């Protein structure tokens, strides 16, 4: 949770609008709502029945345009590379995550503008 706060603060300091979800269930509620979401950043280990990789798969299935960044203490293997746009191994530098988010969102805007 404290990592979530740190990342959220860093992203807000960059001018991003950040929606915080404490677990997969909350994330799915937000994704299903009218709240505009361009990028999902999730840890694989979450305090919920659904882990972050399953959340990422579910989000990818319903939102092909959604950018996905996954963080974990180890590479989950499998289809992670196919699902996620970026992967960060913990411990990671917050600045590195913020920079990657910035680049991915810029890619989205470029693609949308075509």
């Amino acid at each position: 949770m404290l990592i979530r706060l740190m990342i959220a603060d860093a992203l807000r300091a960059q001018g991003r609008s950040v929606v915080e979800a404490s677990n997969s269930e909350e994330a799915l509620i937000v994704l299903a709502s009218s709240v505009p979401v361009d990028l999902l950043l999730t840890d694989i280990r979450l305090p919920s029945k659904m882990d972050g990789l399953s959340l990422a798969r579910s989000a990818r299935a319903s939102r092909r345009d959604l950018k996905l960044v996954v963080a974990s203490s180890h590479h989950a293997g499998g289809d992670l590379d196919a699902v996620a746009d970026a992967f960060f191994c913990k411990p990671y530098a917050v600045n590195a995550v913020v920079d990657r988010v910035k680049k991915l969102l810029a890619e989205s805007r470029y693609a949308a503008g075509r």
Partner: protein
Amino acid sequence: MRQADRKPGKATETVLVVEDEVLIRLVIAEYLRDCGYKVVEAANADEALLVLQQTDRRVDIVFSDIEMPGGMDGFALAQWVRTNRPGVEVILAGSVTRAVNAASDLCEQGSVPKPYEPQTVHDRIRRLLASRGPRPPDSRASGPKTLCCPPRLISSMTGAASCFLTMRRAAAEDPCAFSRPLQTFRSGLTRRSIPG
């Protein structure tokens, strides 16, 4: 939300929003950020405690739902704050009947009934911060904040009067809830010390 009603808070004033329903939490959190507050979000009391236990992290106000899943509800959280972070003010949000039963002991400004308008929450926060005066935020040396007045001074104390009025309004809606909180309120006041 009306832009004219949003008066910017000081950049350093921090509100901890504790709410288990994510869509409610994000609306009130974003509203308060737009009002100029720094906002920290917690999905439940356990997360709130993680934040509050960081004594180097400034928190001026805790705005918490009363009914939350987990081992600790808003009342217990407010009690923890009163004991461990005495300079931090607490505003509870919940159903009026339940809130008035305990809010008088825990929150000088009573509670905010749900569903609430974000502007109402902002107004309550502004009043609390304004009434705090020059006392430094989260000052452990100041001790726990209590109502601290004998019954005859109720009408002259904004906080107590506000709380009492909240209870009277609640009683008008639910007469069964009135006699118990009033008795608790009065007996609690006579037990409390008169400030020096």
